[in-house]
């Protein structure tokens, strides 16, 4: 298994955020995590990037156990996370933002090549290169944040609510970009979304989390037709 969560539990203070969560991902897959706020989606991502400590369980990535590493070491292994809420560095230029994404990389020419690739994917980012990132619109910021994560040359990309607070039409642009990144560059993606319909449409498999546990899992196409899911998350 390329990436695996084995019986992971996470506590903040005394509150249990994750309870014996087991999930996995094959190389090249997009896996969606859906569920209400507080269900443990973000905690799952934070556990992967070592921003949250596990109280029990193991996390494996590419044949290595990563749950005891420092955040920087996890990033170095090729895990890149786009946190919720478009955290650009608001007072830095877009270019500096992108270069921060490549912080751990030494080969300058390689970084330059990747910059060009990012510009091909998001021409808008190139247009805004010299601007302070904080002055960009919501959709543009989301593109910058995803580009910044790509600059780290990740093998596994974690996206936390990329559609949050974006106009529905921008959401579609972002969704398309996610599909393309996965298809063109072969990057595996874990996608956390409130917008369950969009998430299940673009992912291969999905997990529904409820109060820190996995409530349901399966192929996304199946989940889209599941009665429970429809009632709880799709409102059909």
């Amino acid at each position, binding site marked *: 298994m390329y990436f695996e969560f084995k019986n992971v539990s996470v506590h903040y203070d005394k*509150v249990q955020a994750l309870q014996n969560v087991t999930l996995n991902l094959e190389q090249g897959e997009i896996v969606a995590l859906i569920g*209400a*706020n507080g269900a443990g989606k973000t905690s799952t991502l934070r556990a992967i990037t070592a921003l949250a400590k596990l109280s029990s369980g193991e996390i494996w990535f590419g044949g290595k156990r990563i749950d005891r590493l420092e955040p920087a070491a996890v990033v170095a292994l090729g895990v890149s996370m786009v946190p919720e809420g478009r955290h650009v560095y608001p007072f830095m230029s877009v270019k500096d933002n992108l270069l921060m994404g490549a912080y751990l990389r030494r080969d300058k020419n390689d970084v330059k090549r990747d910059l060009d690739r990012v510009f091909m994917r998001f021409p808008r980012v190139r247009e805004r290169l010299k601007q302070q990132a904080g*002055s960009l619109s*919501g959709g543009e910021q989301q593109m910058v944040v995803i580009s910044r994560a790509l600059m780290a040359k990740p093998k596994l990309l974690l996206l936390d609510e990329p559609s949050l*607070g974006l106009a529905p039409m921008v959401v579609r642009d972002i*969704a*398309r970009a996610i599909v393309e990144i996965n*298809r063109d560059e072969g990057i595996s993606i874990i996608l956390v979304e409130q917008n369950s319909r969009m998430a299940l449409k673009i992912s291969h498999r999905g997990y529904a989390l409820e109060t820190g546990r996995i409530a349901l899992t399966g192929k996304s196409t199946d989940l889209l037709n599941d009665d429970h899911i429809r009632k709880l998350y799709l409102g059909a």
Partner: protein
Amino acid sequence: MTLAILEVQGITKRFGGLTAVNDVSFVVEKEAILSVIGPNGAGKSTLFKLISSFLPPTFGQVSYEGHRITGLSPHEVARRGVVRTFQETSIFKEMTALQNVVVAHHLRCRASSFGLYFSSATARADEERFRKSATEILVYLGLGPVKNALARNLPHGHLRALGIAVAMAAEPKVLLLDEPFAGMNIEETEAAVKLVRGVRERGVTVILVEHDMSAVMRISDRIVVLNFGIKIAEGTPAEIQKNEAVIEAYLGRADDELGH
């Protein structure tokens, strides 16, 4: 129009070179539910701050029951009956749910500061009343069982409701709700929608900012759409869904092809 309770007239807010809200006007009718929608950064939150006087506008004004409230200090605006809630969960974290709501009855205090300090008969009677009324509000919003729990330990859904309870304690005539349904699944949203309708049943006019389109379409009497600080449309949910400008700028065309 005779029933207008709140009127926003040509309000504009500039931060340095950036115009966050640009010449926005609309009227809110008494006991209506009006939603403000638009992408993040479209100026919705700024508009809320302008209405509740947390920010002074660059131009324009807000009238409430025919009187200008722009320029008053925010607590004064609350005193008149225009009360806002905050995005996320803004409550007094280190107090119990009950204490939160009791404190929020402040506007109804009849005792002076000295009376409060020396616990005069008026002050004691006030507190007695507040505790009753707070309990009633909490029960109404379904928080009865957790009223003695410390706010910081409450789960997310309860915090949202508590935020509304705190605002309700201030006896608003106009309640401004900032993203009341964010982070809820369909089921929870349904409950919250009922709750907001219940608030309106009590004679409160509700203005809300929200991203959840389906909830907005269900709950609103009218919708105002902002984009880059400009009002691009206003109307009933049915009108908004058909409005070309809104589709162009915000909703987008019907489902494009997505997925694999």
